[in-house]
């Protein structure tokens, strides 16, 4: 009488065990996938087409408080780069001065597209958005051209510095050709500090 019931219990227990195993396996697979993608995204990236040697005229754009900017700029100056004043010597921030040419980000709002318009302006509005992207890039290119011609800047260097477990990155543009000549993603290490990251980027730029 008891044998089939015991068999059924055993089957149920087996199914529960299997379910648990399946769940654990699924969670492990998801964790593995997340970890793999996260690691892949934090991999270091480096490409250098030409050296940006000490002595070059450079503009450095870095989005951080002024005191940290000073540390970064001082590092470049100590290595003999000729750092042109761009967002370096200002008593005000770039945000206060520049509008569309501020090298920051695109942000625009327009009253078009409101529901109370007589006709559907969505398509025209979308087209206007697309044109604004092209215009924005074109105006930046013109500004970079002016930077080179009027202020004798050769390289524009962009940096973003991040803490441990995150990625610091940099890019350099040769304003003579408008070409990207150096890119680097540097996974910040535990023992890194502000100065060691900047030193790393300067060495990388100079091809050392």
């Amino acid at each position, binding site marked *: 009488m008891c044998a089939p019931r015991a068999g059924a219990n055993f089957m149920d227990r087996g199914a529960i065990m299997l379910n648990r195993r399946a769940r654990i396996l699924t969670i492990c697979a998801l964790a593995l996938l997340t970890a793999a993608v996260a690691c892949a995204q934090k991999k270091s990236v480096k490409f250098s087409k030409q050296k940006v040697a000490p002595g070059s005229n450079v503009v450095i754009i870095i989005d951080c408080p002024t005191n940290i900017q000073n540390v970064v700029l001082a590092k470049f100056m100590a290595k003999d780069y000729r750092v042109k004043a761009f967002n370096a010597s200002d008593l005000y921030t770039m945000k206060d001065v520049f509008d569309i040419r501020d090298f920051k980000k695109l942000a625009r709002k327009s009253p078009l597209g409101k529901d109370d318009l007589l006709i559907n302006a969505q398509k025209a509005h979308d087209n206007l*958005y*697309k044109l604004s992207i092209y215009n924005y890039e074109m105006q930046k290119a013109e500004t970079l051209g002016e930077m080179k011609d009027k202020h004798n800047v050769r390289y524009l260097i962009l940096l973003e510095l991040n803490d441990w477990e995150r990625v610091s990155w940099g890019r350099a543009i040769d304003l003579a050709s408008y070409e990207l000549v150096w890119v680097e993603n540097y996974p910040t290490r535990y023992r890194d500090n502000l100065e060691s990251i900047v030193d790393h980027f300067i060495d990388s730029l100079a091809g050392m």
Partner: protein
Amino acid sequence: MKPAALFITALVLASLLGSPGTARADAAFGYLHNRSGNGNYDYLETIFPNSFASSISSLHDIVVLKPGIVDERLKKRGLALKKSYTPRELPKIADGAGADFFISGDFLPLPGNRIEIRLHICERKTREVFSFVNTGKMETEIFRLVERISAVVATYLRQDGLYKTRAIPAGTRVALISNLSGKELNRLYLPFLEKGFPVLCAQNNDIGEIDDGSRFSNLRYISTRTGSFAAPDDAPEAHFFHGPWNNAGFNRQVDETGRFFRLYDSGYVETKDKTLERFSKGFRDSVDVLLIVGFSEDRRTSWLRAIDMKDRNLMWMRSNIAPDSRFDDPVAAIGQKIADSMGTDTGPAPVR
């Protein structure tokens, strides 16, 4: 329970490891309208679509419906197959034809025994319309033209909206605009730089991202003289009463509104051409190709549009680009796929 549990695990693993597949498409053909007004060419209105359908069916193994069958299907739904349609009408006809794609278009005989053929391909599911223009010689070379256009259509239907007019060899100077920024943008640039494509400083001098919510996806829709991809809007055509009874202030408002819509809607291609010309001058004519790459929010899929800056025409279009493995960094993998396929005639391999 045991097989069910195993099945669920296998399904999860398969979905993690595998990639999305593509289904086989079928296409319905409408007529090709004779734009010349010369009745001597009217016979081509039926011959062209039938020839395209036969060629696509036999050479490219795609299921096709010829105009006669499409007309019968439409009649059952109280519609009739017309010789030409406005872009706005196409999704409704595509629904009526019952195929994945509805293809119609027009042609114009040109001086010098040449002919210009324009096709509109409307996808029933997305209601988006891809249009392209191809020009060739009549008479002896007409079959070659039919085969060439059939190949373009078949590639578009079978390979996730792929359209490419030519290969882009290493050394071509590329201005790249995307909705990535910072370290992600560096990972996208790397394969292009390593493949020997000079990347110009469009966008890459941004510290902040260019992405403005979902607005960047508007750039998926593109309009050029020889190729465009658009979602026809449903806005009704508005007719305004306008005449001597209107006062000057109202007339001025109407003029200003009209100018806005001429610039950014009906005459958008001309406006954009002028903008791209200024864009080119801004970069001192150093841009060969403008490459626009849009990523989904999770970065796992991407689309691209490429404009030839010499003639401002669409030269490459592709949707649904995805990494082959879910363990890869999607931005780097997609960038690698695009960079690898720059030099080929057909673009990245379709996702299978």
